[in-house]
């Protein structure tokens, strides 16, 4: 028999196995769409994987430009993905995220959190000093309307509820805060400089405006407005800044895997902290919409809410709310 004839015979014989490929891919589709709980099916997938690997290797040699090869490549890739898929337990995954993973990330990023917080405090002090020394500089940080309102001896926060209902105000504020946090995290991509800019600018503005209101005898009123939501809101700004700084450092000083791998690891790790930030900002937004602008809440209530929510944030980030204790941590380590 000629070589070509032999190849044709081999190929024809090989194609007789097409039915077993169809059955394999049918099984994978059933399993991936969860239309079956058949244990037999699940056990057969491992055999299918070996069968498809064997036949794919033959198809690459015998039928390199055929639809059979394309079919086998696809079936093999689907089986590979299906075998590598972890079991789906959304409830447990969420619990594990808040109990173990986020506290671990906070621990890993503690130095970033410290330095970013220091940057925020330093820029707040710098902002206050700037306006104290050069009062006209407030024009760089506040709108003309805001300046005019404060110069009339009023706070712009006093009329917030007259203009917008609490629910709408909450929604706007929490959306805006979440966007700022996400941008602070993503800005870490510019080797951390973008994150430092956002954190620094926010600190500078806070210091400037507090000093400006103090110069007009309104600092107490502003403190009363800010304290309920601000404790967590400003802390979250530092946390998302720390997440962005970690991304930036991964690009500046990549590990052994290279810059791309280092960036990916840092982004995935810090992203978990960002999720906690988003959850906390939803609460802060609700407080800022319903409590902060409402004059019926006395100062002590606002302080209790602000400090209480801040302690809740600490408990969330340490995993205490989900049953994490020192002994759990030791086991996890």
């Amino acid at each position, binding site marked *: 028999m000629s070589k070509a004839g032999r190849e044709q015979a081999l190929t024809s014989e090989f194609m007789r196995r097409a039915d077993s490929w169809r059955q394999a891919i049918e099984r994978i589709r059933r399993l991936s769409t969860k239309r079956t709980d058949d244990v037999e099916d699940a056990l057969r997938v491992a055999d299918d994987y070996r069968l498809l690997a064997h036949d794919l290797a033959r198809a690459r040699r015998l039928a390199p430009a055929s639809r059979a090869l394309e079919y086998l490549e696809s079936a093999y890739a689907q089986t590979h993905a299906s075998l590598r898929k*972890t079991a789906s337990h959304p409830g447990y995954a969420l619990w594990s995220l808040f109990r173990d993973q986020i506290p671990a990330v906070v621990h890993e990023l503690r130095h970033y959190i410290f330095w970013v917080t220091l940057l925020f405090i330093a820029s707040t002090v710098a902002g206050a000093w700037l306006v104290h020394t050069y009062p006209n500089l407030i024009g760089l940080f506040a709108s003309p309307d805001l300046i005019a309102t404060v110069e009339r001896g009023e706070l712009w926060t006093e009329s917030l509820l007259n203009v917008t209902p609490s629910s709408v105000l909450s929604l706007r504020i929490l959306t805006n805060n979440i966007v700022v946090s996400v941008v602070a995290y993503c800005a870490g991509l510019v080797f951390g400089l973008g994150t430092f800019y956002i954190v620094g600018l926010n600190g500078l503005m806070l210091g400037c405006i507090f000093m400006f209101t103090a110069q007009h005898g309104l600092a107490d009123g502003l403190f009363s407005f800010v304290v309920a939501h601000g404790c967590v809101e400003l802390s979250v700004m530092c946390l998302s800044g720390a997440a962005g700084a970690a991304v930036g450092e991964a690009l500046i000083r990549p590990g052994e895997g290279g810059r791309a791998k280092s960036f990916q690891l840092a982004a995935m790790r810090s992203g978990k902290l960002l999720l906690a930030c988003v959850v906390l900002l939803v609460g802060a937004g609700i407080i800022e919409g319903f409590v902060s602008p409402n004059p019926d809440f006395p100062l002590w209530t606002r302080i209790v809410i602000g400090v209480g929510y801040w302690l809740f944030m600490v408990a969330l980030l340490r995993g205490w709310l989900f049953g994490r204790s020192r002994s759990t941590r030791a086991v996890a380590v």
Partner: protein
Amino acid sequence: MNEHLSKSSIDASAGSPDLRIDSVTGVDVSLRIAGIGARAYAFTIDLFIRSVLSSAWYAVSALVYNGGRGLETPLEASPAWYLLVVTPASALYLLYHPVVEVLMRGRTPGKRMVGVRTTKHDGALPGTGAVLVRNIFRIVDSIPVMYGVGLVTAMLTRNNVRIGDLAAGTVLVYDHSNVELPEYPGERTLPGGLDNASAEILDELLQRWPTLRADARHHLARRVLARHAPDVVPAEDDASLRLQVETLLKGARA
């Protein structure tokens, strides 16, 4: 898991580099990487879908809110206007990608229509965390306009990935899960010396029959019949000609 690139040469995605993933069987998994064309096409379809959904929600809910008197924002809008009309419409538009990709494990209707899917570097489906991080970095990819950064990054990177993919460790690959196998002569004896390659051509001709121009499909069908069934007189009308090709492929002449 190691991955490396090679060139491959089958079908419309020919020329795209492959993502090759080592496997325990010793036979590597080969996934063809989608380029910026497929990426942009899928995004455009999704953009259309989310725009329609968002506009439809706004239109219907605004009409209901205004008692059928128009779509304008009321002069004194109540919280219900923002919470039931504006917010859901904005959320449909802005959260479409993260929500749909989480629910569909890295796929969207646009990607499905184009035939691409997101995968991790080891060939597994991306998890919720990876999908969310991939979408968060859209903020960077979309600047300054029209996904400028994302497009440039996709053009410059080895695996044609945007920054969101780099952050999440994902790749966009072609998905051939809808490829069907024809009946091969090896499975059933056919007349006319039909070999495997011819069987695939016949099957593809039948699959593409509705999309080919009538004169083109008739020309192809007659050539196939002349070669593999010379004693069959090709029919004049479309339906009979198609039936003859189907019969030839099934191996049972009418």
